[in-house]
């Protein structure tokens, strides 16, 4: 039966060879080919319109920019026009092709399918049910397989989700919190970000403000810099930037100065975007062309000029935006300074008469210049600056003009309260002091308004009014109990805050333009002649000092940590003591700022280095402090701070000690910021979790850890920034120390094999952690530290790794020369001595390279090679004539610098991890056991002393004025005589 049915089928099939079938197949094949061709064609078309199209557009853009340079090049012109035409035609054609192609393809496919179906239909088999033998078996089997299949997919689902879920994601909750505390708009209070500082109150919280200086002798004056264009505005300060603006009838500029050196970092030109029909602005000389003070939110600095031009720059001097608000109609010229609130710059744009209804309050977003909000003000023109006062529960933007004093909500410009109490030309700014807002009407009165009102509070909230006159320019200042008014003619008055009774007055017999400021109990009043009156004003006027600057001053001074910045008519002055932060950059030479000291040569030029001590008796040991966390890195020294880092698998810290007492000052935690989910780092014990030595530029201390985490702290232990460079792939764990060049932090980030191309050289800006430049390096992982060498007045950043020794320009990372001469695991750092760079390949050779080459100098500039082996860890040191190599096993060798001949060798029979250092003619060799060999090595090895510390030492010592700092396994030792 079954057989029969089969036969039938077969015979059926044989019959089906009708011509119909054949032609169906033929059409099917044809249409298939057709569709495929069309398809390919469309793909091509698509590709062209996508890639070539864009390419052409760039071409035409280039051409267009070219035509700008030579506008009357007819040939170029016609080329552009033809090309443009061509492009447009192409675009249109591509569109048409796509459309037609679509239809054709569809048609082709339809035909194909029809013919295919009919072909198959024409030879359809009759149903041939296969009667299965064991139905039950099959059923059970199917169910089983299905179950397994489902289980399988379950497992795959589980695994894949497990894999995906294991990725570390950013914790936004934490990120949000961090953002609030990060270096940002919230630091406004800490800096002098706008006119009269925080809250516009003219009060500085810094206790260490200088109180004595003299312009003639230059005493107490840190620096003095010429200001290109004049202006009656005051400096503002943020971090290590000072901003102010200057202008003349034709130019408007914003300036940025460096706080430590007074160098003009950049100046930004502000164009005048006024309408073409306006005639140039005429300003009266008292006001000047740049009366309004600039303001900064910590990211951008914003300046406004009496022309109505507003411009915003970032801290690098790049113009972010500029716009024109329309020239203000102001009787004496626009003079109101900017206020800042979070990301908003607030402009009190009062103009015209009261009835003109032209006055406005404008809030601009710093990033974009977008007008965030803008409201009309029912007042006439004024010259007083708005303040953003923190009244405890809220921020109030307080403005005063004729006739209204109005407080707004700085975020949206909603009006909080208003009081009608002023008339005339209001120039002095309001201030806020415990619950009261004080405003002044010139020559007439001082008004105190309670700041907790709503709506029109003229009747209800005016606490008191004192009718005994008031200054016309200078703003008041208050310490909470009394408020001080300084008239232009020099009459200083003191009123009681609570009831407005006049407590005392004092005539200083000097004209004043600048507003008085308050530091602690001391009033600082800067006269127009540039004389600063400093007086304790708690109970009555007690003058404590009178400092002459010797230059006319119109702007109010700015106060920062230990400094006063005063703008004279021509110069900007910085007044304050030389503190480590500022002296720093001039002389790293005195200090031991990074691994192996200045320039990383292991040479100290101090003569008074101790030569005798004993760890057992404690003789010659000044102090000894326990180090909280272990690490194989060396201490570094800056003035009275010693820094080093320590880490274990879970913690990474920078540690700061006091040089005189050894007191443990602070420790800074560097968080681990892994990018992906990385299992905790495993590092072999010889390297340890904190092998790289920290570095400092005198302002901040920088550290890196084998996890790729970087951190920076200021000298007080406050974290400035931290970031993660991605975990380095290093065979024995990352160990290269940091190098410093001016404000650049240089990191030799060698990893992986040579072919991996993962190695980099990275330069970060010290203050921000921003990557200034980075260069790929064609080398494998290495453990040697880079050095910045001053070779014949040319700075070179020297790096050695397998196989290249490369010298870079430290400021921009441009490669200067490279030599292919090393292989293997390079751990010892390069050094240089009279024009030669020395690098070591462990157990194999010492190479001297002439440093004046360009490009690949392998063939040309290798002075000599000594194949007599070389140390694997310790870096060499040289006194200019001979170079000294110290092998880990204690073999000390001396080679002649000039020809590489071996002069002598000496086996010290000790283990050495620390690199040798040279002081004068004495070589200091610190053994693994903590024994310091001190020897004169001019002609041969003459041992002078052998001092035991009694603790194992892995790190190289640091040398400072009369001291040696040695890191033992557990303790930090300071060796020297206490005098």
């Amino acid at each position, binding site marked *: 039966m079954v057989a029969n049915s089969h036969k039938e089928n077969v015979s059926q099939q044989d019959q089906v060879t009708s011509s119909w079938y054949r032609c169906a197949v033929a059409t099917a094949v044809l249409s298939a080919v057709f569709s495929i061709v069309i398809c390919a064609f469309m793909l091509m078309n698509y590709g062209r319109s996508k890639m070539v199209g864009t390419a052409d557009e760039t071409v035409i853009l280039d051409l267009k920019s070219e035509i700008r340079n030579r506008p009357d090049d007819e040939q170029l012109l016609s080329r552009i026009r033809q090309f443009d035409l061509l492009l447009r035609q192409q675009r249109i054609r591509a569109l048409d092709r*796509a459309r037609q192609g679509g239809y054709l393809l569809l048609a082709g496919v339809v035909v194909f399918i029809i013919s295919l179906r009919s072909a198959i239909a024409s030879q359809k088999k009759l149903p041939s049910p296969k009667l299965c033998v064991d139905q039950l078996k099959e059923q059970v089997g199917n169910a089983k397989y*299905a179950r397994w299949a489902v289980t399988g997919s379950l497992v795959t*689902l589980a695994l894949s989700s497990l894999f995906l*879920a294991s990725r570390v994601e950013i914790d936004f*909750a934490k*990120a949000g919190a961090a953002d609030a505390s990060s270096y940002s708009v919230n630091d406004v209070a800490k800096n002098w970000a706008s006119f009269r500082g925080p809250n516009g109150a003219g009060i500085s919280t810094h206790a260490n403000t200088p109180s004595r200086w003299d312009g003639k002798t230059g005493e107490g004056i840190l620096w003095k810099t010429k200001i290109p264009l004049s202006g009656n505005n005051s400096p503002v300060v943020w971090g290590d930037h000072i901003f102010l603006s200057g202008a003349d009838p034709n130019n408007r500029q914003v300036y940025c100065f460096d706080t430590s050196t007074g160098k003009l970092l950049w100046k930004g030109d502000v164009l005048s975007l006024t309408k*073409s029909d306006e005639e140039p602005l005429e300003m009266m000389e008292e006001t000047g062309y740049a009366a309004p003070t600039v303001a900064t939110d910590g990211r951008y600095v914003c300046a406004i000029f009496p022309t109505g031009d507003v411009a915003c720059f970032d801290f690098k001097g790049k*113009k972010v*935006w500029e716009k024109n608000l329309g020239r203000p109609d102001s009787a004496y010229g626009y003079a109101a300074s900017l206020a800042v609130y979070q990301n908003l710059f607030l402009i009190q744009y009062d103009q015209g008469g009261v009835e003109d209804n032209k006055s406005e309050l404008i809030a601009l977003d710093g*990033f974009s210049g977008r007008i965030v909000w803008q409201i009309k003000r029912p007042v006439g023109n004024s010259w007083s600056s708005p303040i953003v006062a923190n009244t405890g529960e809220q921020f109030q933007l307080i403005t005063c003009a004729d006739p209204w004093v109005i407080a707004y909500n700085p975020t949206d410009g909603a009006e909080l309260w208003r009081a009608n109490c002023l008339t005339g030309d209001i120039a002095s700014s309001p201030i806020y002091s415990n619950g009261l807002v004080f405003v002044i009407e010139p020559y007439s009165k001082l008004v105190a308004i309670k700041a907790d009102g709503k709506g029109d509070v003229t009747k209800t909230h005016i606490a008191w009014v004192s009718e005994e006159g008031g200054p016309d320019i200078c703003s008041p200042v208050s310490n909470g109990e009394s408020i001080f008014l300084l008239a232009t003619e020099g009459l200083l008055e003191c009123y009681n805050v609570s009831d407005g009774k006049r407590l005392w007055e004092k005539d200083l017999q000097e004209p004043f333009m600048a507003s008085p400021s308050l530091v602690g109990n001391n009033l600082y009043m800067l006269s127009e002649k540039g004389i600063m009156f400093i007086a304790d004003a708690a109970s009555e006027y007690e003058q404590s000092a009178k400092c002459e600057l010797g230059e006319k001053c119109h702007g109010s001074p700015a106060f920062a940590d230990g400094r006063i910045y005063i703008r004279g008519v021509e110069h900007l002055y910085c007044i304050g003591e030389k503190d480590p932060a500022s002296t720093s950059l001039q002389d790293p030479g005195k200090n031991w700022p990074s691994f192996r000291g200045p320039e990383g040569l292991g040479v100290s030029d101090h003569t008074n280095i101790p030569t005798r001590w004993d760890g057992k008796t404690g003789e010659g040991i000044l102090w000894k402090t326990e180090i909280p966390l272990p690490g194989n890195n060396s201490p570094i020294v800056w003035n009275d701070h010693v820094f080093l880092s320590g880490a274990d698998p879970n913690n990474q810290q920078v540690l700061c000690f006091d040089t005189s007492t050894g007191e443990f000052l602070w420790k800074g935690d560097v968080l681990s910021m892994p990018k992906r989910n990385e299992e905790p780092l495993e590092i072999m014990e010889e390297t340890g979790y904190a092998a790289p030595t920290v570095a400092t530029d005198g302002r901040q201390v920088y550290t890196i850890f084998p996890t790729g985490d970087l951190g920076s702290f200021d000298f007080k232990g406050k974290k400035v920034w931290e970031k993660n460079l991605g975990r380095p792939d290093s065979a024995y764990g990352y160990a290269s120390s940091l190098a410093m060049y001016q404000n650049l932090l240089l990191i030799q980030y060698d990893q992986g094999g040579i072919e991996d191309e993962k190695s980099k050289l990275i330069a970060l800006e010290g203050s921000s952690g921003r990557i200034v430049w980075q260069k790929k390096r064609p080398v494998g992982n290495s453990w040697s530290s880079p050095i910045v060498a001053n070779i014949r007045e040319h700075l070179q950043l020297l790096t050695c790794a397998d196989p290249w020794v490369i010298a870079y320009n430290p400021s921009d990372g441009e490669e200067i020369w490279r030599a292919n001469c090393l292989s293997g695991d390079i751990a010892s750092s390069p050094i240089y001595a009279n024009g030669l760079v020395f690098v070591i390949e462990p157990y194999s050779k010492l190479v001297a390279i002439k440093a004046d080459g360009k490009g690949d100098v392998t063939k040309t500039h290798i002075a000599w090679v000594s194949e007599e082996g070389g140390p694997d860890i310790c870096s060499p040191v040289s006194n200019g004539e001979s170079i000294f190599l110290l092998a880990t096993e204690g073999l000390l060798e001396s080679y002649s610098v000039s020809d590489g001949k071996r002069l002598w060798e000496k086996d010290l029979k000790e283990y050495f991890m620390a690199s040798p250092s040279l002081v004068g003619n004495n070589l200091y060799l610190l053994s693994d056991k903590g024994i310091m060999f001190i020897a004169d090595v001019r002609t041969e090895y003459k041992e002078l002393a052998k001092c035991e510390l009694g603790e194992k030492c892995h790190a190289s010592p640091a040398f400072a004025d009369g001291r040696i700092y040695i890191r033992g396994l557990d303790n930090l030792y300071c060796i020297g005589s206490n005098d």
Partner: protein
Amino acid sequence: MRFFSNILLGMAVSLILCGDTSGIERFPPPDFVETDHFIPSPTTPEPRQDVYEYIDAAVLLVALGLASYLVLKKRSRRAIFALTLFSLLYFGFWRKGCVCSIGATQNIVFSIFDPDYAVPVVVVVFFLLPLVFTLFFGRAFCAAVCPLGAIQDMVLARPVRVPGWAESALRLLAYVYLALAILFAATGSAFVICRYDPFISIFRLSGSLNILILGGCLLLIGVFVGRPYCRFLCPYGVILRQLSRLSKWRVTITPDECIQCSLCEDSCPFGAIRRPAVQWPQQEYHIAKTRLTFLLLLLPVLVFFGGWAGSSLKGVTSQAHETVRLAKQIYLEDAGQIEEVMDASTAFRATGQQTKELYEQAADIRARFEVGGWILGGFIGLVIGLKLIGLSVWRQRTDYEADQASCLACGRCYKYCPREHVRLKKTKDGPGKW
């Protein structure tokens, strides 16, 4: 004017940096003195009339009704095929395949979870009608109305049988797809069903290359495997499956009684025909019982771990939401881990909104994804558990039947049944006899 151009030249820099792209009105409107030129206003061509939307809905209703009739009463494959062709042309190529019932699912979910989004009536209709019809007449929608089904049905030329185990494993994809689609729609992140609709760009004859390729491949597969999208991917199909299990009337292979001729066996390209199942022998029965109890106990475990897995995926799933992506970008930029900035972040900074706020938003969106993840994962766990249970219980079957869930009501099996031929003969020359 030269003066002007110079200024503009000078401001080139600020053009690049200036985030202010909405613009402020710098120049006053013209006052024409010589000519009395009137200031025109821009043309605003109206979108498609709502009327047409309602027509679509009506067409859908009619098509569904007709399909049900053809499937259950007329039992004519030809007619069904014709209707399929029509749907393909109307809903597919004419209406450009949007909005379709499959995508409408997301709009419904979105409107339930997002207070601001109100879903148009037509979309509701497109979502509901097929479901209701399925409750009554089985998956007539899939058979002849759905354009996606139609285009696959067209290309299906030489069906090969997909082994049962593969079928039941692949079908899980659809459930996962549905769950994800709902999660993303509910969180207002994305309409993934629309984004990865494989055939829409074919209906439009234009679209992104990737989707075109995807659609092409699916169609190519569809030549041999019957309706791959409907069976293994379609999220809407998942709902239809479950409903059609309960449908009042459904496809029966034979018009009256099954004579067990087994002719229809391989007539179904979708592997939806079930053989008669013999009685379960004793020893098998015991094993099956223990297995079943084990699986029943396993079910809650699966649900829980599914939920747990789903919730722990929040970090990944929440990436679908633009706010989270933006927050991440901003974070990485601020952390200095990436140098280049994106338009999105620049635009964000231009708004002057505090990054803190953004992070907070991102945080609670992610929290929502966590909750959603629990539900999603739990659902998938449940599905898999039930699937396993379903595969371990034994349903006795005496006749050849179309599987309630899987049958797409295409009517291919009808003319394989000898009883059907009898019926047709009756209907044809029935009256003539007397």
